[in-house]
């Protein structure tokens, strides 16, 4: 279980400010909230009226043995039944509406915020964490807010109405009932809290058990080769044993709670029976009224239990609430200045008419950058690239070559120095302006669910089918696409899972081409793909780069060879720079890197080729 998963189970004190913020999400659904509360109040009233009618029947019909008014009685009862059923429908439907609405709104706002947050946020926040906020947390909070309102309204409603009516009928019996209220409430609160704490413990162990199964199944083959079965099983039985213990302990409190509360409630019932019976004998309390009181005393602990449950639930959801609010209130580190926003618009409402064209001249002016304080990745880096040139960046993992590209794309901004595009600091233009002129192909191509056509169109939303197919032809993707049963309308599966890596790469090239960008960034793949695809991708790259300012994080020799300038980066500094031929002649780092790769690539081709030749 990760530290983040651990966090799911922390418990914090209820902070009303957090809930106030969440409660503001009910505002757009005022009508439904009002309907829910109204219906709930009626239901609470009906729950008191029911026993009353029962008692009334005793006094009016049974005791005197008469039938007068029976018709009316039935009619009123039926009307009440219809009203109460309608109210039940109304409150469930409306509370469901509020719940779904709040959940929808929280997700909408979070998603909106996520589109604005900077890469620095994504670097330190795992996708799983964000997903958990967006899925389970938000639905749980919506559930808590909507149904707590229902329970609260019914609980208080029922308690107030029944107490008031009891006081009206018989203040002595009402006082008896009132007396057990404080211990009942205290007990309920204590127990609900305990129960929830234990349940959380059980959930925590549950997720550890899932983790253990996950590891047991994923690692089964390794376990076999290490003959670790008995050791693993021993550990697992300890885990499943403590799960059993915890679950039983949690159930213990639940099992204890109801009997205790009911016994406490029965004190009231017993007292009412005794005192009420005495009043029947001495003070002329009617039997109907006695029955009414007995019924209420029986039902009285329900609202207390509900209210105690709400408090426990609020406490339980506090952490989730804080996390969601935290996400919503997160401020993006990179944002456009108000002047820029005013002139060029934001990412959702761009003012394209004011956008200047981008020709592709790029200048890094004494740029420094650090992801974390004190860990300089790039220092005083300067570079001038005339429009249309291809720059290849070469270096080991962590050398800073990806940082240069990230800065160029304005995924991060320099901590010192400036980056100029067409001679202007890019912070004086909107982010969307730069991104709309950018072609970007990732090392691991990311596709979206949908058809191949939709994925290519991602580069240019208003691209015609003709444009899409032209782009696909240009990168040489049309061959495999036309072999697919549905051609361009073939769904690629979740994340492109139905296509091979090479095919995905070709589509991501086509996607970049259809955008016709002035700037092109290529984070080239190292993963081995079959030779045939490699040749095709190579051809695609050459076509894509023609006439565009390009930055390439290069691994493949052929791409490097043709670049206008190759820069070897080490620890944030350029240690060698020049054309392929110049660098080879220099016999330095580049030479070593190149020759090593050369042998490896040939070797791979030989071993794979031999297999292909013989089978």
């Amino acid at each position, binding site marked *: 279980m990760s530290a983040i998963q651990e966090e799911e189970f922390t418990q914090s004190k209820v902070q009303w400010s957090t809930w106030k913020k969440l409660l503001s999400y009910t505002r757009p659904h005022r009508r439904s909230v009002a309907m829910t509360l109204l219906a709930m109040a009626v239901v609470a009233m009906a729950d008191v009226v029911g026993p009353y009618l029962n008692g009334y029947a005793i006094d009016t019909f049974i005791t005197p043995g008469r039938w007068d008014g029976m018709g009316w009685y039935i009619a009123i009862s039926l009307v009440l039944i219809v009203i109460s059923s309608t109210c039940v429908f109304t409150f469930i439907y409306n509370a469901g509406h509020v719940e779904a609405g709040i*959940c929808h709104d929280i997700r909408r706002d979070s998603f909106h915020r996520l589109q604005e947050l900077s890469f620095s946020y994504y670097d330190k926040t795992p996708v799983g964490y964000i997903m958990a906020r967006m899925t389970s947390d938000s639905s749980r909070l919506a559930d808590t807010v909507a149904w707590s309102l229902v329970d609260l309204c019914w609980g208080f409603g029922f308690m107030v109405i029944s107490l008031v009516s009891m006081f009206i009928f018989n203040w002595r019996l009402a006082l008896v009932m009132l007396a057990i209220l404080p211990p009942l409430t205290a007990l309920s609160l204590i127990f609900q809290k305990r129960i929830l704490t234990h349940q959380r413990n059980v959930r925590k162990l549950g997720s550890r058990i899932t983790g253990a199964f996950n590891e047991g199944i994923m690692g*089964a083959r390794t376990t076999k080769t290490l003959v670790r079965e008995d050791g693993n099983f021993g550990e697992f039985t300890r885990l499943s044993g403590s799960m059993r213990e915890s679950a039983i302990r949690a159930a213990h409190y639940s099992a204890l709670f109801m009997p205790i509360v*009911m016994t406490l409630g029965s004190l009231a019932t017993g007292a009412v*029976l005794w005192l009420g019976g005495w009043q029947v004998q001495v003070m002329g309390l009617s039997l109907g009224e006695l029955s009414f009181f007995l019924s209420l005393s029986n039902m009285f602990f329900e609202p207390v239990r509900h209210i105690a449950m709400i408090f426990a639930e609020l406490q339980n959801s506090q952490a989730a609430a804080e996390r969601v609010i935290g996400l919503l209130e997160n401020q993006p580190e990179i944002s456009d200045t108000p002047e820029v926003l005013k002139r060029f618009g934001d990412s959702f409402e761009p003012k394209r008419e004011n956008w200047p064209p981008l020709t592709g001249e790029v200048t890094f002016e004494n740029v420094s950058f650090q992801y974390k304080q004190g860990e300089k990745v790039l220092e005083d880096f300067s570079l001038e690239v005339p429009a249309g040139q291809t720059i290849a960046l070469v270096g080991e993992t962590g050398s800073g070559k990806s940082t240069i590209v990230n800065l160029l794309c304005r995924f991060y901004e320099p901590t010192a120095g400036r980056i100029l595009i067409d001679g202007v600091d890019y912070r004086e233009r909107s982010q969307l302006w730069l991104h709309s002129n*950018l072609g970007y192909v990732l090392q691991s191509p990311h596709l979206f669910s949908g058809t191949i056509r939709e994925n290519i169109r991602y580069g240019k939303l208003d691209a015609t089918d003709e444009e899409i197919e032209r782009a696909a032809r240009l990168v040489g993707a049309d061959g495999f696409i036309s072999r697919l049963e549905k051609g361009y309308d073939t769904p690629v599966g979740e994340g492109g899972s139905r296509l091979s890596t090479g095919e995905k790469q070709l589509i991501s090239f086509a996607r970049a081409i259809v955008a016709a960008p002035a700037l092109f960034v290529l984070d080239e793949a190292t993963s081995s793909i079959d030779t045939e695809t490699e040749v095709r991708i190579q051809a695609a790259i050459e076509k894509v780069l023609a006439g565009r300012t390009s930055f390439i994080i290069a691994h493949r020799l052929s791409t490097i060879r043709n670049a206008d300038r190759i820069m070897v980066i080490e620890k944030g500094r350029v240690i060698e720079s020049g054309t392929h031929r110049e660098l080879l002649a220099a016999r330095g780092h580049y030479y070593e890197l190149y020759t090593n790769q050369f*042998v490896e690539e040939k070797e791979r081709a030989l071993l794979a080729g031999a297999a292909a030749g013989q089978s």
Partner: protein
Amino acid sequence: MNRYRLKALWGFMSGARMYYLIAVASSLLTECFAFAMPLIISNTVDYGLNGKPLRAPAFIAQWIEGLGGAPMLARNLWIPGVLLVCVMLLQGVFMFLRGRTVSMGAETVARSMRNRLYDHLQRLPYDYHVKAETGDLIQRSTTDVETVRRFFSAQFIQAVRMIVMLALALGILLSIHPLMTLYSLALIPFIVASCMWFFKRIQKQFAVVEEADGHLSTVMQENLTGVRVVRAFGRERFELAKFSVANRDIRDKSIRLTRFFAFFWSSSDMIVIIQQLVTLLVGVWYAASGAITLGDYIVFNSYVGMLLWPVRQFGRVLSDMGRMLIAMGRIDEVLKTPAEDSGDDPQAPPIDRDIVFDRVTFGYDDKEPVLRELSFTVKAGETVALLGTTGSGKSTIMHLMQRLYDADEGRITIGGVDIRRIDKAHLRRRVGIVLQEPFLYSRTIRENIGITKDSICDEEVADAARVACLHDVVEEFEKGYDTLVGERGVTLSGGQKQRVAIARTIIRDCDVLIFDDSLSAVDTHTDAIIRSELRRRRKGITTFIISHRISTLKEADRILVLEDGRLTQQGTHEELINTDGLYRRVWSLQASLEADMEREAISV
């Protein structure tokens, strides 16, 4: 089919049956006391206040008469009050006992299911895990177990409770007034049937919402993992629009689901209240006409009230039972898959002997053989390197050496003993293998390296790590050897993982070591250091090395060249570079580099 499943269910309950026996008994007593409460009230009213005869078993009646009868009771109304509290207290005791034993039973069943699954999964053959759908297996081990557990902890006892309550209510009410009983319970079959219908229907609705939920998750997940693509193409607005469609879709579908629920609960509420009203009216009729007493009237109304609300859950229990049986079937299916065994009379001979492959043929799943009549001998203590084309069967040889698979034809002997007669655990303990993409457990680095040891000695771990060129890397971590690996802690690079795997294998002191391309992700420099460390350490250990790096291969005592499942060449480095073949072609790449470079420089 269902009968078989019920039998399996009974099997899973072993060790917990006693708990359930107590739980059922407690449930019976709980409901008896619960049903006693309205009887106390009705008798107080009838007997104590209204002077009607006492409705109780004869011996209780006699006893009360002996104490002074109705007048005494009327003077001391605290007696029924206290009695009521006592009955409630007793009910509480048994209710607690019921809850407690049910949870003990359910958790015992769940634990034994989990343990059996975990144990069995580990003992299933290697091949099973190669083909297994991990997600599905995890689902069975977690969600399905949970479904069964929940049935045992909640629905089972609810069903018992319902049956007990119905029987008690029928018994008592029929003894009071049979016809009135009929009127009072007339709608119950209808309520149960409609609830069952509803809960069946609602499953489909849930599936619809779940599907929409899944779609929304996909949209989110793709947006988040593809955040670079989204930003680089400036598609924030497009993404928001796409998300909004999915978000609205699930909202509307959830609302439709609640409407369904609202309709069900309100209409079933109505039926229940109507049944209560019928009871009340009929009761009034009979009571006013003197056919039943006021106390009886109270009893009827109380029992019907107590019975009707839980009856609604009965439909749910029945529909959940179907789901539980399906989940149990899925668990049983895994447990039914035969586990691996070492055959009759497994032996544990010494493994540090000559290894002979004698015309070994092997293919996965009756497909075309991967190895064809492969024969070679490896002397004890010899280091043998394997070079082969992609898919030539190098790794398969390693699988056979650990008996992860057995040869189809021919035989493999170690010191003259056919390995099919050797105990698998023994063989695997003596033959260490380092896979190309090793799996590390999510524990500390120390625990990973010492995973096969009963007690972990720090010195040994550091020693093994040093051989694998890992020690310095680990020392740089903030927590050193206590650094957690994987999801919970640091993410190791491919090369680092390989080195942990090497360390955890060499710490075992095996007789045979196999490196299945295990240094592919390590740079050539580190590779060389590790190899020299290993050479120093593995004196006398038979070693297999699969690699395509000539520098690695040439150090071996002997090199085997495999092509398409056949042994095409074998010999020392010197011998092979003087013979035409795959090995020389690979080796000559290095030599031809200089010439190629010259050509390169000119061609640019």
